């Protein structure tokens, strides 16, 4: 595991250093992607014999270096979904998944996919109707050119395809797809928050005002501690989600519970951590020359994907309200009734 973490850290660091100054809007990092494919990390869980624990290391490790590659989208989402429905995919190259609400009428599936991450490679459409999930390769769609706050490509397109051209599966697959996405974002956000914290610790140790480094001021120390607290709590909740996925897979009530709790915890950490990071950096941290935004804006963008914090909080609240004893839901996942 340590070797894997070191490899990922090394790849991420080199990729970051190679792109300094060329980051907004961001573009796909082909050199890094080649390295990830050469080392087998690009499709770790879908093609290699690796599990969620390894995937978590790759996700958080690359996020720490603001890697510009659709690693979660390729491996955990698109390759998994295509495998699930028997849809053939290219053996290499980046993949992504477009999750959208879809309508079915006159034998056609239609809708609009929005905010599709990294839409320039092969796109697997996951169109969700009331009672089914329709999966198909997207071919020839006019995908809009856009990006999120962090400059990562995000695109939208309309789709209209014959039902017969898609593979239809149970709508539960859509739930697992979203859960996988939320799980991946939790790991990535923890990586981005770690980066923001590292930068803040370094900055407050170097920047001198009133004749001393900022970190000699008690008010600054307390903010640093508050930041560390939120991150460690997010990490602990995410660790439970990693353990759940490792032990039971993504299609299990334990994983549903742990991912829901983690998405809320991580989601609530993003505000305070990024706010403190910017506050302690002073105005330099909001400029494009400084690398802080690569961490903070990623965290702030990712937090809304695959279900907002409030949506997950509502789900967790309903679990606690339905339980015989809410304490059971604090201890572990609620036993099936």
């Amino acid at each position, binding site marked *: 595991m340590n070797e894997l973490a070191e490899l990922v850290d090394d790849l991420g660091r080199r990729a970051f250093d190679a792109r300094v100054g060329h980051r907004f809007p961001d573009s796909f990092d082909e050199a890094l992607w080649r390295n990830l494919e050469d080392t087998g990390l690009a499709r770790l869980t879908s093609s290699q014999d690796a599990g969620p624990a390894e995937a978590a290391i790759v996700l958080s490790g690359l996020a720490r270096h603001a890697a510009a590659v659709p690693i979660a989208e390729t491996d955990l989402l698109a390759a998994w979904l295509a495998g699930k429905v028997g849809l053939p995919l290219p053996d290499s190259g980046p993949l992504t998944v477009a999750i959208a609400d879809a309508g079915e009428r006159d034998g056609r599936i239609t809708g609009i996919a929005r905010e599709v991450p990294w839409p320039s490679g092969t796109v697997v459409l996951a169109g969700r109707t009331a009672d089914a999930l329709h999966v198909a390769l997207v071919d020839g769609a006019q995908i809009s050119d856009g990006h999120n706050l962090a400059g990562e490509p995000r695109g939208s397109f309309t789709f209209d395809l014959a039902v017969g051209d898609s593979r239809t599966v149970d709508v539960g697959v859509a739930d697992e797809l979203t859960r996988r996405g939320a799980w991946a974002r939790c790991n990535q956000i923890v990586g981005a928050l770690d980066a923001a914290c590292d930068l803040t*610790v370094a900055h*407050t*140790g170097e920047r001198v005002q009133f004749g001393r480094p900022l*970190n*000699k001021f*008690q008010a*600054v*120390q*307390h903010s*640093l*501690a*508050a930041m*560390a*607290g939120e991150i*460690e*709590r*997010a990490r*602990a*909740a995410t*660790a*439970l989600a990693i*353990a*759940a996925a*490792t*032990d*039971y897979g993504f299609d299990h009530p*334990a994983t549903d519970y*742990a991912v829901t*709790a*983690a998405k*809320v*915890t991580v989601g*609530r950490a993003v505000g305070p951590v990024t706010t403190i990071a910017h506050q302690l950096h002073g105005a330099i941290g909001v400029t494009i020359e400084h690398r802080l935004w690569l961490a903070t804006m990623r965290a702030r963008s990712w937090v809304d994907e695959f279900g907002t914090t*409030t949506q*997950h*909080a*509502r*789900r*967790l*609240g*309903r*679990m*606690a*309200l339905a339980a015989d*004893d*809410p*304490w059971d*839901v*604090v*201890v*572990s996942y609620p036993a099936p009734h």
Partner: protein
Amino acid sequence: MSWPVSEFDALCANDAELAQLRTSIREFLAADRAEFGWQPAVDCWLANWNPDFSGRLANAGFVGLTVPTEYGGHGLGYLHRYVVTEELLANGAPVAAHWIADRQVAPALLSYGTEEQRRRLLPRIAEGRLYSAIGMSEHGAGSDLAAAQARATRADDGWVLNGSKVWTSGAHVAHQIVVLARTSPLDPQHRHAGFSQFIVQTSAPGITISPIVLMNGEHHFNEVIFSDVFIPDTDVLGQIGDGWHQVTAELGFERSGPERILSTATLIFSVIRALGDVDDGVAADVGDLVARMISLRQLSISVARTLADGQDAANRAALVKDLGTRFEQDSVELVADLLDYVEDAEPLRALLAAGRVHSPLFTLRGGTNEVLRGVVAKGMGAR
């Protein structure tokens, strides 16, 4: 060593043996409450002193869990104790009488006590019949504990203690107080040197214990004045001059335990149980509250597992206490807001009131959060 079947269950402190233990303490608590009628309470580990309960709990095998069997304990691991502790708190059980002895004095005796002290005291602790207080803070020494001035001077076969302690919880009903006192004068260059710990009987001549009453009239704290109190050599705890190290070495356990998260659990769960059909907004508020509890508990258990493996986790332990006690404090007002949606809120008002009176204590006791944040920042390389 046997590997846990499920890492997930292990992280939830709910794998095979722990899950069994959890079931048995829950069964004990339900039956005991049904028979003896105690009411779940907020901050029960400070406020609810019930020697009969402590005795019954010990009879059932739930006190002295980590004390070796040769001293009358159960020889179980720290995580076993963790599970029992959190179930007691989540159920608001009246644990105050034996709490400090079981939680702090027993581990200190096992680390620093003499064989004679262990044989004399540990069996009574494991029987839930020894009640202890801890004498640390003084009028001029709160957060700055090294400013403590109580002093013990050498006498024939022992020491003579003079000075005072404040905020000494339960001293008026305890058998003994473990006192931190200076045994050498203050050296400004080495402020933490020259402290020692003593086990002082509350019945010893020269001790005056006076109440310090909480703002709602409750009496838990005391001022304890020692004038020429003789302490035999057999009641020195650990090494003379090593007191500071002894009281800080075990802080990781104390700072990261369930009592830093669950002091208001009874109030929180009572209100959630009382909520009927609620709208999405209220459900999200409940979810946010529960997510904070889950994540804090996960962090706390992760620290417990690290400490149980004999590794250092001082920083994260300080984080648990800072985050956990602030959560306890916040939870009171979050729950007060939820009461609006409870049809018959009246029975819950007393718990809420107790929460409001006790909540300022959560972020003070055992080291203020301001001090803890300094500890954390230092660990991050600041200072």
